[in-house]
């Protein structure tokens, strides 16, 4: 579908930690291995994680002169702040890919943009696999959208980038490959539904997709009253209060829990990564180790018998 003059220019934007840099690097690697000229350069603020993170990728037959450009052929934006930030890279011919939960915001911000495609990557990753493979779904979709990258090259680049993690846990390989395939499918579906590119990118819901996006999914828009609502789970002797607006999904509490009751949840937190929940091991003994080591004060434990520790 994408057949611009010269090289293909791609901008990817998301929250730091969402994985857009990894996606960009894999795309550039796959292009390079397929015999194209390819260049990738990241751009983010002083915070290594937690800000909006931009990635510039160029792929094509022409030698690449400069790493940064002003108008992109393909833009991917995967959080609210990212959608707001990429406005300057949009031209009349630009395709905008975004996660389906951002539909309203994209319509509102760029009403005249014709070529926009919603990919329900977050929902598919969360419902079918694990929220963490969100970026690999995106990778599949964007790789497909370029029309340049052979799937084997993308798979090979994915292996080079994440192989060391797969070696530690082989089940991850299967999940990531599946995420890649689902992304490719979602892209084909979305583009088929696009027809004459009427801008109504309405192929949104994958199978089983009735749930609307939760508030915390919408990126970090500052703490408004109400977004500090905890998720309260009772488990064993404890009542587990988890504040998704604060939880960054570091997992320190999971490893510190002596009864290993804490595990990953499907709900996403402050940085678009999964939060934690109890109920994955022995019942909670309300020792408060998790509360103690949480660097973000996102956990609070109340004893169900009401006793102070």
């Amino acid at each position, binding site marked *: 579908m994408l057949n611009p003059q010269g090289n293909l220019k791609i901008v990817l934007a998301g929250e730091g930690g969402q994985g857009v840099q990894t996606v960009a690097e894999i795309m550039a690697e796959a292009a390079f291995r397929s015999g194209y000229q390819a260049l990738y350069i990241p751009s983010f603020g002083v915070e290594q994680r937690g800000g909006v993170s931009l990635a510039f990728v160029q792929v094509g037959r022409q030698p690449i002169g400069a790493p940064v450009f002003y108008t992109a052929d393909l833009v991917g934006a995967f959080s609210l702040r990212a959608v707001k930030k990429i406005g300057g890279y949009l031209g009349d011919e630009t395709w905008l890919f975004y996660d389906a939960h951002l539909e309203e915001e994209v319509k509102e911000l760029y009403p005249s943009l014709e070529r926009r495609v919603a990919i329900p990557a977050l929902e598919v990753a969360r419902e079918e696999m694990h929220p963490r493979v969100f970026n690999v779904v995106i990778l599949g979709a964007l790789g497909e959208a370029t029309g340049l990258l052979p799937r084997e090259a993308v798979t090979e680049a994915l292996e080079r980038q994440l192989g060391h993690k797969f070696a530690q846990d082989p089940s991850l390989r299967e999940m990531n490959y599946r995420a890649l395939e689902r992304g490719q499918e979602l892209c084909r579906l979305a583009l088929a539904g696009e027809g004459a590119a009427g801008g109504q990118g309405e192929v949104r819901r994958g199978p089983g997709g009735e749930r609307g996006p939760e508030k915390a999914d919408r990126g970090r828009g500052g703490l408004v009253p109400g977004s500090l609502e905890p998720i309260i789970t009772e488990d064993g002797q404890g009542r587990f209060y988890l504040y998704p607006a604060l939880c960054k999904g570091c997992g320190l509490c999971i490893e510190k829990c002596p009864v290993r009751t804490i595990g990953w949840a499907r709900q996403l937190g402050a940085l678009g990564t999964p939060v934690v929940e109890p109920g994955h091991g022995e019942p909670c003994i309300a020792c408060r180790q998790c509360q103690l080591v949480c*660097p973000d004060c996102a956990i609070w434990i109340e004893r169900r018998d009401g006793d102070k520790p």
Partner: protein
Amino acid sequence: MLPARLPQMPEVWRLESKPHKFCPGCGHGIVLKCLGEAVEELGLVDRTVFACDIGCSLLAWDFFNLDTVQTHHGRTLPVLAGLKRVRPELVVVAYMGDGGAYAIGAQHLVASAGRDDPVTVIVVNNTVYAMTGGQMAPTTLPEEKTETTPYGRRVEENGPSLRGPELVASIASPGAYVARGSVARVRQLKGFIKKGLRAQVEGGHLAFIEALSTCPTNWRTNARETWRFLEEKMHKHFPLGEYAPAQAVREEGGGAQPPRKS
């Protein structure tokens, strides 16, 4: 349904700036939680001035509902020493990383320790220059891989890793408080920070607390490996505990003091 509850964070934490700017799994949040609780429990909120240095520690510039100053490269200490001389009723806390305190700003630390400035110094040691991308710091462990030591730190080339509390204890005056805690021992660390604040407020002495901390982003570790690196490697290399100032030891033992000129 139970009523919505606000997160249980120290009141002195500034809610508007949360979630804070540190990476997921960063130990700064734990150290600052200990500091916040310590300041509250000692009833010092109204007169505490917080100062952060350059590096990741400066991301705490809007962390507290406290008067805050940010300086560069270890100058946090002389700035606070000056502030304390002008306004001795204030409680001043210098919050630095190992890069700012031990490498770039080491002379300020040495001078302050020698003068016994009544300042509470908290140095967060994560063994790397984290904000700039994880380069080797003075505290990098032998054989530890960083951006600038891809094959591991070689002691014969780069020297052994620097131990801050031992350094400060060797030059600090009697009455100074020196300790090393860890974010894996939260209650102990908070106790050290409280003692450190008391040393300044009640004794008018320097207090130096090093907090061993985590940097999953630059260590490139998941949660399990993060704790393992901290608790197995760092705790072994940097012993936790309180360090008596060597000057005090020498005085008690008599001798060893240089003869005074009359």
